């Protein structure tokens, strides 16, 4: 009984409650906050600071880097093949020249 009375008194402790009052000059503070929020740099930094934006930027940077690395690797392979082709052409030309020289010398 004592327990129930105690609990009832707690449940009724809000009876007669008065509204709490905010500090004076609330409008001034709200106005100042609105002016601060309309500042360009504040708005920009609040957008950049969002986790979603930061994560998207990070993913974009990583994706671009991966693409550039893969692209660089494939270009390197293509150059190696091209260089190999060019070298064999040069060797063939040299052989031809050598062969030509030999024939010339022979004809002399």
């Amino acid at each position: 009984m004592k327990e129930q009375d105690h609990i009832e008194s707690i449940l009724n402790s809000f009876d007669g409650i008065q509204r709490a009052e905010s500090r004076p000059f609330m409008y001034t503070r709200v106005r100042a906050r609105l002016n601060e929020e309309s500042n360009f740099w504040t708005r920009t930094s609040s957008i950049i600071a969002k986790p979603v934006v930061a994560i998207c930027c990070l993913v974009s940077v990583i994706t671009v880097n991966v693409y550039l690395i893969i692209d660089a690797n494939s270009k390197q392979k293509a150059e190696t093949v091209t260089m190999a082709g060019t070298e064999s052409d040069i060797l063939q030309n040299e052989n031809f020249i050598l062969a030509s020289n030999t024939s010339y010398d022979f004809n002399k």
Partner: protein
Amino acid sequence: MLKEEILVQELRQGNEAAFKEVVDSYQNMVYNTCLAIVKNEEDAEDIAQEVFVQVFQSIHSFKGESKLSTWIYRIATTKSLDFERKKKRKKRFGFVRSIFGDDSQVVVNPPDFQHPGIVLDKKENAAILFKAIDQLPENQRIAFILNKVEGLSYQEVSEVLETSVSSIESLLHRAKNNLRKILEKDYRSRT
């Protein structure tokens, strides 16, 4: 109602005097609601300012289907609950960091909340009740605070929470039952 319509119209046009009137008329209502939810005067003051900033920025989305005060109550309760959720997340994250040896600031349990509007002889019991309210599900908590602290009728609470009066009756009934259980448990643990 006509006066409110004119006020809303002027607010939409960015009229400073209209906005000042809204702030002056509703500041205590907003502050009291936020204070009952977050139980800290500085935080409640901060959130109240955010509420009015949002009122100013979002007035074009107010369709006039409900009273202006109802709409403002909704913003105040939403922002207060968001603040509470953020605070709980920080607490959890701080606990995880402490496990890994990060010497973050120690979170000390704040003293019991004393609402300035409670009469002196009921302050202690009110502090216990505020603590118990914290353990209720969010919808029961808000309904109880709007009804008991702000003094809204069931009809008014139902308009804020966008539900029926019978749902509010049921919500408050469950809230009281849950509070009883919490208080009984607390009483038995102390004695």
